[in-house]
C-alpha cells in the first residue's frame, strides 16, 4: 500500500514537473493535493478489512509501549487486577474440584442415593427394607448397599485401623468402575459362610502392601481373620467419598435380611436409561406404603428419599463455596472499578495525545479499539500475575482447608481453571476499559486544544463517583458477611461444651469379632484397659464411652416413656451412650440431679439410665424425671412390643456432642454392664477410651501400649486431645470466616483507595478554583470540609446501597450462622462505622492537600 501511494504521488509530481513546475514544488503540491496520506492508509486498511489481526498486534504493541511509559500506573493496575483474578481463580479451582467435576464413575448423572425418611430425619436403609426394595423395584439397572466400617488391618508392621465398606456384590457394577488388578467379588462370595475375600484401594496397595504386583490372591488379616485379596481399585475410586481403603462382601445372613429395624445402609442405585428420578421416586413411594403395612412396627411413617448422588455427597459444600465465589467476584468487581477509575484519571491527562491521534486521522472506532487493546495488555499481564497468585493461594487453601471438605485435595490449576482465569482477565479488561475508552473517543478536538492546562470545566466526574459508590457498596456487603461470621465464631467460642475439655485425651478402640464376640469378654477387655490406663503415671482417671463428644458417630434410639402409653407415635428419638461407671466423673459432666452409675449397676439389678437435661425436658417437661421409667434398646422375651424398662436415676448437663455450634440432642446414658448384648454389634465393638491427665504431657505412646497389652494386635486410633477435636469440628467455619474476613479487608482497602483516588484527582483538577476561593477569603476549614464532605457523601451513598444489598444477601448465610440473625444490628452498625472511619481517613489526605494550595501558585499555574 505504501509503495502504491508513493507511486501515485510521484507520478502526479512528475506530471506537474512536465507542466513546468520545479520538482520540489511539484512534490509539495502533489502531497497537498493527495491529502493526509496516513488517513488514506487507515481507511484503505479498513476497506480491505483483512488487517484486523495486524492492527490488533499493532494496538497491543502500542499499548505495551504506553504502559511501560507510566510504570507506576501499570504496576498498581496490574497488582490490583492480579489480586482480583488470583482470588477468583483460586476459589474457582476449589469449586471446580469439589462441586463441578463429575464424580469419578460411569455416567454419574444416573447414579442416585437412596435414604429412608422418618419424620424430619433421613436415616440409612435397613437391610430388610433394602432386600425388599431390590426385589420389588423396577426403576434401577443396579441397586447396591454398603455401610461404612473400619477394620483392624494386620500387614507387616503395627496393626492399623483402616476405613472401608461392607458392600453387596453389585456395588462396583453400580458405579461402573473397573479394577486395575484382579476382579470384584462375585454374587456367590456375597453369601454367608463363604471364604473371606477383599477388594483393596490403590492407596492401601501402595502404602501398606508396597505396591506388590502379585498382590491378587494373597492373604491379609482383617479384624484378626484371614482374607484373600481379589482385586485392586484405581486411585480415583472412592464413590461415597469416605476415604475407603477396602471393601468386603456384606454376605447378609437370613437374620439380617429380616431386620427392618436398624437403619444404617448407604443405598446407591443406577437408574435405568428410560427412568427419570421422579418416576423412580414415585415407584419408591408405592413400595414404601406396602412396607408400612407389612412391617407396621418398624416401617410406620417411613418413606424413601431419592437424590442424585452428587447432591447427597456434595450438597453441604454448596452454600459455603458459592458464598466464597460470590465474595471473590465482588472483590474482582471492586478491583476492576478501581482500575477503571485510574484509567479515567489518565484519560483526562491523555486527552491531548488522543486528540492528536484523532487529528491525524484515527477514527473514533480505532481509538476505542486502541484504548481497549491497552487495557487488554493490562488484563493479560494481570491475568498472568493473578494465576501465579492463585497457585500460591491454592496451595495455602489445600494445606489449611477443612479436612472434611471432600475432593479439596483434587483442586489444581488446570486447563479449565486457566481458561476461567483467561476469561476473567478478558472480561475485566473490557469492563474497566470500556467506559474510559468511549469517553476518550467522544472527546471533541477543538475543546481539548482550546483548553488551558489546569482548568477542567469544574464538573465533578459522575462516572468516577458512581464507580466509587459501587465499590463502597460491594465492600460493605462483604464486610457485613464477614462481620456476621466473625460474630458467630466469637459466640461459638464462648459456648459451654457441657464438660471439662482440658487435659482430656480420647482415642477409639475397636475389638475384632473373633476372640471378642462374647459380650462379657468384650466388656471385660474394655474394663481392663480402663484399669491399666488409670494406673499410668500422670493419669487421673480413665473411662470408656461408646461415642465420645465431638469424636464422631453415635447411634440413635427411640424411647417410649412408661407414663405416656406404648404408642409408636410417642417415640422420642435420642442418642444412646454406653459408658463405664467412671465416665461422667472423668469427663466432668456435671450431675444435675440423682446419682451417677456405680459398678453395682449390673444386668442382674434394676436397669438404670441417666438422661441429659434436654431429654428430661422433652419427655417430662416440668416434672422430676428421677424414678421415671422408659423402654428402649431391646425387647423382652414376649416379642417386639414387650418393653424392657430403664429407670432414670440421674440427670446430667447437656453435652455438645456434635460440635459447639450444633443443637443439643436428647441423650441418655446406660452403664456398660447393663447394655443389651446386641448393642455390641450396633457400636461395632468399638469404644472411645477417655483419659483425664493431671495436666502433663499427653501419654500417646503409653495409651497405645496399654491397648496392645490388653488386646494384642488391636490399634487405638483417632487419638487426640479433646481441644483438638473441638477445633477440628470448627475447622470449616473458621476457614470460611477467615477467608471472608480477608476478602472483606481487601475490599475495604481497595475501595478506600478508590475514594482517595477520586478526591485527590478532584483536588488536582480544581487547584485553580481552590486558589481563587482562597484568594477570595475562603478559610482552610471550609475548603477541607468541602473535600471531606464530598468523600463522605460518596461513602454514605455507597453505604446505604450496600446495606440494602447486604440485607438481601446475608439471608443466604443464615445456615452458616450460630445464634446471630442475618440482620444482626450490632454487626451492621459496627461494619458501617468501620467503613465510614476508613472513608474519612481516605478523604483526609486529599482534603489536607487542598488546604495547602497556595493561591498565588495556583493562579500562576496557568
Amino acid at each position, binding site marked *: *500500500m505504501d*509503495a*502504491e*501511494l508513493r*507511486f*501515485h504521488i*510521484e*507520478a*502526479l509530481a*512528475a506530471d506537474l514537473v512536465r507542466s513546468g513546475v520545479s520538482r520540489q514544488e511539484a512534490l509539495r503540491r502533489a502531497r497537498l*493535493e*493527495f*491529502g*493526509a*496520506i496516513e*488517513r*488514506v492508509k487507515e*481507511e*484503505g*486498511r*479498513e*476497506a*480491505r*478489512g*483483512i488487517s484486523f489481526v495486524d492492527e490488533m498486534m499493532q494496538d497491543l504493541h502500542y499499548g505495551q509501549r504506553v504502559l511501560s511509559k507510566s510504570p507506576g500506573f501499570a504496576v498498581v493496575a496490574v497488582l490490583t487486577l492480579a489480586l482480583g483474578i488470583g482470588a477468583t481463580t483460586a476459589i474457582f479451582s476449589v469449586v471446580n474440584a469439589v462441586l463441578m467435576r463429575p464424580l469419578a464413575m460411569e455416567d454419574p448423572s444416573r447414579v442416585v442415593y437412596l435414604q429412608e425418611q422418618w419424620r424430619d430425619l433421613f436415616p440409612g436403609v435397613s437391610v430388610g427394607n433394602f432386600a425388599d426394595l431390590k426385589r420389588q423395584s423396577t426403576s434401577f439397572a443396579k441397586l447396591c448397599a454398603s455401610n461404612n466400617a473400619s477394620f483392624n488391618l494386620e500387614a507387616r508392621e503395627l496393626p492399623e485401623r483402616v476405613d472401608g465398606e461392607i458392600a453387596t456384590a453389585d456395588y462396583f457394577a453400580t458405579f461402573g468402575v473397573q479394577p486395575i488388578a484382579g476382579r470384584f467379588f462375585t454374587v456367590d462370595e456375597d453369601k454367608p459362610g463363604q471364604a473371606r475375600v477383599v477388594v483393596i484401594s490403590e492407596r492401601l496397595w501402595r502404602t501398606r502392601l508396597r505396591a506388590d504386583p502379585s498382590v491378587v490372591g494373597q492373604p491379609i488379616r482383617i479384624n484378626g481373620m484371614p482374607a484373600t485379596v481379589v482385586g485392586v481399585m484405581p486411585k480415583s475410586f472412592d464413590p461415597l467419598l469416605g476415604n475407603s481403603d477396602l471393601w468386603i462382601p456384606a454376605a447378609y445372613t437370613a437374620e439380617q435380611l429380616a431386620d427392618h429395624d436398624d437403619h444404617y445402609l448407604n443405598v446407591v442405585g443406577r437408574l435405568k436409561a428410560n427412568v427419570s428420578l421422579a418416576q423412580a421416586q414415585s415407584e419408591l413411594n408405592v413400595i414404601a406404603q406396602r412396607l408400612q403395612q407389612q412391617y407396621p412396627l418398624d416401617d410406620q411413617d417411613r418413606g424413601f428419599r431419592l437424590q442424585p448422588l452428587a447432591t447427597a455427597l456434595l450438597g453441604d459444600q454448596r452454600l459455603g463455596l458459592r458464598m466464597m465465589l460470590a465474595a471473590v467476584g465482588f472483590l474482582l468487581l471492586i478491583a476492576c472499578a478501581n482500575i477503571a477509575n485510574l484509567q479515567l484519571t489518565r484519560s483526562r491527562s491523555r486527552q491531548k495525545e488522543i486528540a492528536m491521534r484523532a487529528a491525524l486521522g484515527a477514527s473514533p472506532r480505532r481509538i476505542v479499539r486502541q484504548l481497549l487493546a491497552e487495557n487488554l495488555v493490562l488484563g493479560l499481564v494481570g491475568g498472568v500475575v493473578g494465576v501465579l497468585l492463585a497457585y500460591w493461594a491454592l496451595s495455602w487453601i489445600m494445606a489449611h482447608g477443612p479436612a472434611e471438605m471432600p475432593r479439596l485435595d483434587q483442586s489444581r490449576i488446570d486447563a479449565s481453571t486457566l481458561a476461567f482465569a483467561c476469561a476473567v482477565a478478558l472480561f475485566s479488561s473490557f469492563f474497566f476499559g470500556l467506559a474510559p475508552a468511549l469517553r476518550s473517543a467522544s472527546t471533541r478536538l477543538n475543546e481539548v486544544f482550546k483548553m488551558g492546562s489546569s482548568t477542567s470545566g469544574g464538573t465533578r466526574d459522575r462516572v468516577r463517583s458512581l464507580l466509587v459508590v459501587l465499590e463502597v457498596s460491594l465492600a460493605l456487603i462483604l464486610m457485613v458477611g464477614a462481620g456476621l461470621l466473625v460474630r458467630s465464631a466469637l459466640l461459638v467460642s464462648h459456648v459451654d461444651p457441657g464438660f471439662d475439655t482440658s487435659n482430656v485425651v480420647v482415642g477409639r478402640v475397636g475389638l475384632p469379632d473373633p476372640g471378642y464376640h462374647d459380650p462379657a469378654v468384650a466388656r471385660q477387655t474394655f474394663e481392663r484397659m480402663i484399669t491399666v490406663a488409670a494406673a499410668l503415671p500422670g493419669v487421673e482417671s480413665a473411662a470408656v464411652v461408646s461415642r465420645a463428644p465431638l469424636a464422631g458417630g453415635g447411634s440413635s434410639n427411640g424411647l417410649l416413656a412408661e407414663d405416656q402409653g406404648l404408642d409408636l407415635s410417642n417415640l422420642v428419638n435420642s442418642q444412646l451412650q454406653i459408658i463405664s461407671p467412671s465416665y461422667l466423673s472423668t469427663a466432668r459432666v456435671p450431675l444435675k440431679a440423682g446419682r451417677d452409675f456405680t459398678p453395682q449397676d449390673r444386668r442382674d439389678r434394676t436397669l438404670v439410665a441417666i438422661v441429659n437435661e434436654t431429654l428430661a425436658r422433652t419427655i417430662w417437661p416440668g416434672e422430676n424425671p428421677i424414678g421415671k421409667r422408659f423402654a428402649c434398646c431391646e425387647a423382652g422375651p414376649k416379642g417386639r412390643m414387650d418393653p424392657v424398662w430403664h429407670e432414670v436415676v440421674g440427670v446430667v448437663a447437656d453435652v455438645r456432642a456434635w460440635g459447639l455450634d450444633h443443637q443439643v440432642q436428647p441423650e441418655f446414658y446406660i452403664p456398660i454392664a447393663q447394655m443389651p448384648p446386641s448393642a455390641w454389634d450396633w457400636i461395632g465393638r468399638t469404644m472411645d477410651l477417655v483419659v483425664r491427665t493431671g495436666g502433663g504431657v499427653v501419654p500417646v505412646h503409653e495409651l497405645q501400649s496399654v491397648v496392645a497389652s490388653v488386646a494384642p494386635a488391636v490399634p487405638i486410633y483417632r487419638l487426640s486431645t479433646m481441644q483438638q477435636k473441638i477445633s477440628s469440628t470448627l475447622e470449616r467455619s473458621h476457614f470460611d470466616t477467615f477467608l471472608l474476613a480477608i476478602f472483606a479487608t481487601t475490599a475495604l482497602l481497595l475501595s478506600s483507595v478508590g475514594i482517595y483516588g477520586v478526591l485527590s484527582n478532584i483536588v488536582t483538577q480544581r487547584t485553580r478554583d481552590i486558589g481563587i476561593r482562597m484568594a477570595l477569603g475562603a478559610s482552610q476549614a471550609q475548603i477541607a470540609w468541602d473535600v471531606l464532605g464530598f468523600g463522605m457523601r460518596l461513602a454514605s451513598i455507597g453505604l446505604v446501597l450496600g446495606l440494602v444489598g447486604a440485607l438481601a444477601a446475608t439471608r443466604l448465610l443464615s445456615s452458616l450462622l450460630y445464634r446471630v440473625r442475618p440482620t444482626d444490628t450490632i454487626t451492621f452498625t459496627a461494619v458501617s462505622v468501620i467503613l465510614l472511619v476508613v472513608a474519612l481517613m481516605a478523604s483526609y489526605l486529599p482534603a489536607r492537600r487542598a488546604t495547602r494550595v497556595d493561591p498565588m501558585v495556583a493562579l500562576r499555574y496557568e
Partner: protein
Amino acid sequence: MGKQLDLLQGTLDMLILKAVSLGPLHGYGILLRIQQISKDRLEIQQGSLYPALYRLEHLGWITSEWGESENKRKAKYYRLTAAGKRRLQAETQNWNSMADVIAGILGTKPEEV
C-alpha cells in the same frame, strides 16, 4: 475546461469499474482516465480513490497485480473481474433508468400535470 463538478455520492465505485473495464490501470492511471473521459469536468478526491479501490478489491469486483508503469516503475494494476463486469452492467442500467426518471421529473412543465 468547463466548470468542475463534485462527484455525486456513491458514483465513484461505478466510475472506477468503468475506467478499469477499458483495460488494466494503476491507481493514478484510473484517476487520469476518469478525468480524461469526463474532460476534466469531474473533481475526484485523490485520497478517497484508494480506499474505494481496496473496498472493490475486497468485494471481488476488481483484482490487482504488480506490473511496470510507462516510465519503468513498479506499479499496481487493477483489472475488472467477471463479477465486476456484471456489477458494472447492473449499475449502468440502474443509473440510466434513474437518470431517465429524474430527467423526466425535472423536465415536467406545469401544463403536463
